[in-house]
């Protein structure tokens, strides 16, 4: 069983997040405003190596980059 989004390198959570964003954006104006705040995410993260904190990066863009990388590697193989 192959999922199209799995082939595109997305994780299930990402897939759910994208789908829910679509639903949120297609709501009527008044409800959309109330609901849109649930879709906000402004986290930063850092990788640690040997007890030292690495560079702080934006989580959303890092996730996208990682998934794009997975997609290209899976499609080439």
């Amino acid at each position, binding site marked *: 069983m192959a999922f199209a989004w799995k082939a595109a390198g997305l994780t299930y*959570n990402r897939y759910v997040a994208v789908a829910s964003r679509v639903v949120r954006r297609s709501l009527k104006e008044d409800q959309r405003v109330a609901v849109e705040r649930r879709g906000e995410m*402004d986290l930063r*993260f850092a990788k640690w190596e040997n007890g030292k904190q690495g560079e702080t990066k934006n989580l959303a863009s890092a*996730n996208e980059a990682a998934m794009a990388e997975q997609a290209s590697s899976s499609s080439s193989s």
Partner: protein
Amino acid sequence: MMLSRAARPALRAGVAATARPATLNATNAATYATLREIEGRLKSIRNIEKITKTMKIVASTKLTRAQKAMTSSRSYGQTSNTVFENAETKPLEGEGKKSLIVVCSSDKGLCGGIHSGMSRKTRKMLLEKPDTDIVVVGEKCKSQLGRSNGKNIVLSFAGVGKDVPTFVDASAIADQISLLPTDYSSIQVMYNKFINATSYEPVIIEAFSEEAIAQSPNFAAFEIDDDVLANLREYALANSLYWALAEGHACEQSARRNAMDNASKNAGDMINRYQILFNRTRQAVITGELVEIITGAAASEEG
């Protein structure tokens, strides 16, 4: 203790002033200084009380929202855990595989000991299993654990705790955790459990690995394909994280409310004590001055 000691020099200075009018100017300056000092301290305590009171109000309004989010998030986590309960999933033991602890704290302090409680529990767990990796959510536990167990930390997240955590937050964190190169035999999500408004306890929810799910005794009851299993695991991790984040957030707000309540009370006590001290010192200064004037007048009459 400080107060009574501060009050005495003023009284003694008043007595000394009557005895030796020659040193009058110098001692007078000293009593005025302490009076002004007390006044300044009173003012700053009043300001602190104002701030803590405001923070308490802010925390209580946020608390109601946080609690609502907590109860709704609980159903997420518990529903996803029902699957594992029915499948009787157990964490895999031994095999030398690493496990991972996800510590859910937040960025902000001023809320009592809830962050250090979690750090302490993490350290205790690390003593038993020193090769466990840690993922830290929130700056507070990051700085605490970074000092003592920096080598175990693999990821840290910041920016949590500004608002009620969303599911998008949780799933993004879960994605980043599942992208980690090491294959963990078990992932333990640690958070503060909300027992009641004044007590919290760091507890753990298990998020199982694929093998653990596949080997669970009742697994056959669910007709799950192998491909879907990975998705289930990721989604379950996100669910657990969301639950942990929301409950931790509610605990934090409630703890902050209590901490600020206590701080305002203490500030109120201090204001009372300082007010009394201030009045007493002022009285002493006035009495001292009166005595000086009277003795001066009496002396000039005689002469």
